[in-house]
């Protein structure tokens, strides 16, 4: 149902591209509302990374820019007025869309980000997210802020999303299932939605170039790696981490064993298959949970031929974004260290 015509009461309605590839380039035509998930697609990843990216800036809470946007196929019912040249104001309700918005949008465009955007284990750009107002994914917050567009994940907050659509907010959902190859499309799609096509194209093509370079370093030596997250959950087939492991030239043991998505793997299985690399998560230091203890289990430490550590920069593969390249890079370098493409291992 894309490009719905204005309904009979003349209220604003929504244009929703339904699949990733189906992105309308008409960026200014859509009112975006962004919504937040509780958890990222891949759980927390590990390692401290230096912060960087665009989108630094201070949010001006009262820009006085209450306006309605004219959309090609949509007549806004909002009565306020604003210059047509203005870019859409965006509210993001998911830690993954938060980061795409941070990378692509102008400071003035960002109404608020999800409160998980500050969590370093989930959000690679947590430092950049700090200056902006935060939301906790409730419809009321959207209603009060009246953004032009809400962006959210497809994974949760279904009730919020449908309520917002009922209230005629423009809501764009970003898919939960990601791989290293879908990321450029997501960047371009977000760029189109928020009127930053050129910036999106620059970032996406740089990412594509880097990914191709890293992939070129693969060879027939494929050591096994496994991402062993909190509570012994492994990231199997279909996860972003799986595609990162693959792109870095490893065999993902979880996928080999037939695990897909996020599934608990008994510690005994992990021990008996002795993967070359075990990627564990760095726990939150100020808020302990038993879930983190699995990484310290003596059975893991007893594996003499396996390297265990938080090899992936923290938050780098929790969400689809250009920073995923840092995860691919870190793992590629690790692979070259333990199993050189030189025939003698």
């Amino acid at each position, binding site marked *: 149902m894309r490009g719905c015509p204005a309904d009979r009461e003349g209220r604003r309605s929504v244009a929703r591209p339904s699949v990733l590839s189906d992105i309308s380039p008409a960026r200014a035509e859509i009112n975006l509302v962004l919504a937040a998930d*509780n*958890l990222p697609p891949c759980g927390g990843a590990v390692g401290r990374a230096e912060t960087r990216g665009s989108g630094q800036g201070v949010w001006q809470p009262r820009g006085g820019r209450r306006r309605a946007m004219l959309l090609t196929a949509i007549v806004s019912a909002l009565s306020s007025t604003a210059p047509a040249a203005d870019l859409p104001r965006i509210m993001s309700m998911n830690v993954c869309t938060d980061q795409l918005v941070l990378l692509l949008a102008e400071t003035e465009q960002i109404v608020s980000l999800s409160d998980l955007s500050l*969590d370093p284990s989930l959000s690679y750009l947590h430092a950049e997210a700090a200056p902006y107002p935060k939301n906790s994914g409730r419809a009321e917050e959207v209603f009060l802020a009246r953004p032009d567009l809400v962006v959210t994940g497809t994974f949760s907050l279904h009730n919020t999303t449908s309520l917002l659509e009922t209230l005629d907010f423009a809501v764009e959902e970003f898919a939960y299932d990601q791989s290293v190859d879908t990321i450029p499309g997501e960047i371009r799609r977000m760029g189109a939605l928020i009127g930053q096509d050129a910036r999106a194209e620059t970032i996406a093509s740089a990412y594509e170039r880097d990914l191709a370079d890293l992939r070129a370093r693969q060879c027939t030596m494929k050591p096994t790696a496994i991402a062993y997250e*909190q*509570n*012994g959950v492994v990231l199997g087939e279909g996860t972003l981490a799986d595609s990162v492991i693959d792109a870095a030239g490893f065999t993902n043991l979880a996928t080999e064993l037939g695990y897909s998505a996020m599934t608990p793997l*008994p*510690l*005994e*299985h992990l*021990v*008996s*298959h*002795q993967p070359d690399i075990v990627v564990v998560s760095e*726990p*939150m*230091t*100020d*808020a*302990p*949970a*038993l*879930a*983190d*203890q*699995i990484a310290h*289990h*003596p*059975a893991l430490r*007893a*594996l*003499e031929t396996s390297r265990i550590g938080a090899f992936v920069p923290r938050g780098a593969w929790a969400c689809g974004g250009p920073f995923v390249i840092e995860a691919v890079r870190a793992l590629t370098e690790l692979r070259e260290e333990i199993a050189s493409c030189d025939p003698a291992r």
Partner: protein
Amino acid sequence: MLNAILGLACLILTAASLLVGPADLDLRSSFSGLFAGGDEAAMIIMQEIRLPRALLALTIGISLGLAGAVLQGLLRNPLAEPGLIGVTSSASFGAVAIFYTGLAGASLYALPAGALAGAALSVVLLLAIAARNGATLTLILAGVALTSLTGALTSLVLNLSPNPFASYEIIFWLLGSLRDRSMSHVWLALPLMALGWLLLAASARALDALSLGEEAASSLGIRLSATRLLVVLGTALAVGAGTAVAGAIGFIGLVVPHLVRPFTDRLPSSLLVPSALGGGALLLAADIAARLVVPTRELNVGVLTALIGAPFFLWLVVRARRELF
């Protein structure tokens, strides 16, 4: 005789527990993995994963069975049990309150410290209630209230934790599990539990005398305050330390003394060793079942003990209306 049978059951079930697990290890590699070097993976699996699990099931079962028998003797109440009267849930809350708030960093030592404090406070509170009103029902109702309160507080603390995994751990603290425990958990809990067993066992003679009531027991030379102190400390150590590493596991201390009592002379002291061994055997069996019932997905052993224990409790309550235990 009874003790020999139960001891043998503990041995057999410990061995069975060592042989159950997702990794398919044959008998020979299990055995060599446990005692010698052997295949490296088999060694790690046996020594670092299955052995601590079996040891914890055995020793926590012993703690719960023994504490149940002692509490029943002290309170002269056949329904007294660490889980039912709120001791385990208080221990859970104590552990949760100290660990998840990060007061002690992420140190594992925070768990037993908090659990012991929670368990001790709850036993003192229950003794105070029992001293004011000795009726069986009063104590059970007070325990129900305490269990609900501490369960709610446990959930609250875990919900408020900024760590997204904390709220998934509510079920662990309310219905415990022995999944992926390690030898560090054994070394953390076992010395404390063993000390608790000694204190509880030291109360045996006093419990016998208490069969005749507190006045008669005093006149037989029993110092009631000392007995209460032994039981409070012993229960806090045995149940608190077990709960700290395995979460709240209920009903073992209720079911086991009732099952073994008909085979004893019914003196509280005669019940202690069989209840301890029976508790060990029951928890081992329940933990084996927790791994086997649904092959792909392991259950929390606390769920199983509650599934067995709660109907048993109901049956005891119904029967209690007809006869006096």
